[in-house]
């Protein structure tokens, strides 16, 4: 699943010789494996910067970024619900914000992050069963997540605009 070039392989075995090898006073208390001598002598899993940027790696990062971004979406949902509970004036303010270009952009990104994270999550749930972990499947899942999340986001917005005149 993880591919290395010949240069990267040597770094994998001995990253401690490059960083913080001489530092031994902090033994035991130091939580950072790159500066803790005892821990650094073991073969470490390579740090993020030595990987060639691959699709599956990017998707893993994207899943975390979209997940963290959804916290902003949650705050927006909170604002909307609280405004409705307060009254028509508060709701008008939120409604005005979401109707504007900034509001719409945020909502569009929120929709996309939500769909991406949801599909990425389904992918993880499939992996939890032990299925779909082979090289082909992970690539297919990655592309499916990207394409389906984009398609769903666009469809949701088309549906939203189509239904707008209903009221």
């Amino acid at each position, binding site marked *: 699943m993880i591919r290395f070039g010949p240069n990267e392989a040597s770094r994998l075995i001995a990253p401690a010789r490059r960083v913080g090898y001489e530092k031994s006073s902090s033994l035991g208390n130091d939580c950072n494996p790159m500066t803790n001598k*005892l*821990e650094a002598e073991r073969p470490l899993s390579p740090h993020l910067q030595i990987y060639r940027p691959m699709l599956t790696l990017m998707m893993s990062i994207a899943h975390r970024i979209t997940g963290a971004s959804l916290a902003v979406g*949650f705050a927006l949902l909170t604002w909307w*619900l609280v405004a*409705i509970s307060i009254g028509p004036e508060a709701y008008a303010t939120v*409604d005005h914000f979401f109707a504007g270009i900034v509001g719409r952009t945020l909502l569009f990104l929120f929709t996309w992050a*939500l769909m991406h994270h949801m599909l990425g*999550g389904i992918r*993880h749930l499939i992996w939890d069963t032990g299925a779909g972990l082979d090289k082909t499947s992970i690539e297919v899942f990655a592309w499916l997540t990207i394409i389906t999340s984009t398609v769903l986001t666009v469809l949701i917005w088309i549906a939203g605009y189509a*239904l707008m005149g209903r009221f």
Partner: protein
Amino acid sequence: MATPLKRVRGLGAAHRGTETFWRQRVTAIANIPLVIFLVLSIISHIGASYTQVKAYLAQPIVAVLMLALILSAAIHMRIGLKEIIEDYVHSEYCKVAALLLVTFFAGVVGIACILAIVKISLGS
């Protein structure tokens, strides 16, 4: 030889076991239909008046599903953000501060949403 293995056994960076892993999966599964419900609720009410939106949210079934979504999503968000912090923030002070912030954020948005939904559905 003393190895960091003793720290890993049952007590990793999170100082917790598998229950967090399991809870993240349970809330993830719950979030799927609830998020679809939220999206459908919102796109079917674009351009609706304040009274119409409020009346929709006041329906018992809608309120129950919204409360379920808020609860499940807040727990899921708290675990997710916590895991990101535990992975990337190595300074103990910063880590604890960030974890507290995330916990308070999840708590505040969760409680605010729940109060709002209860207030809307009770019509006060």
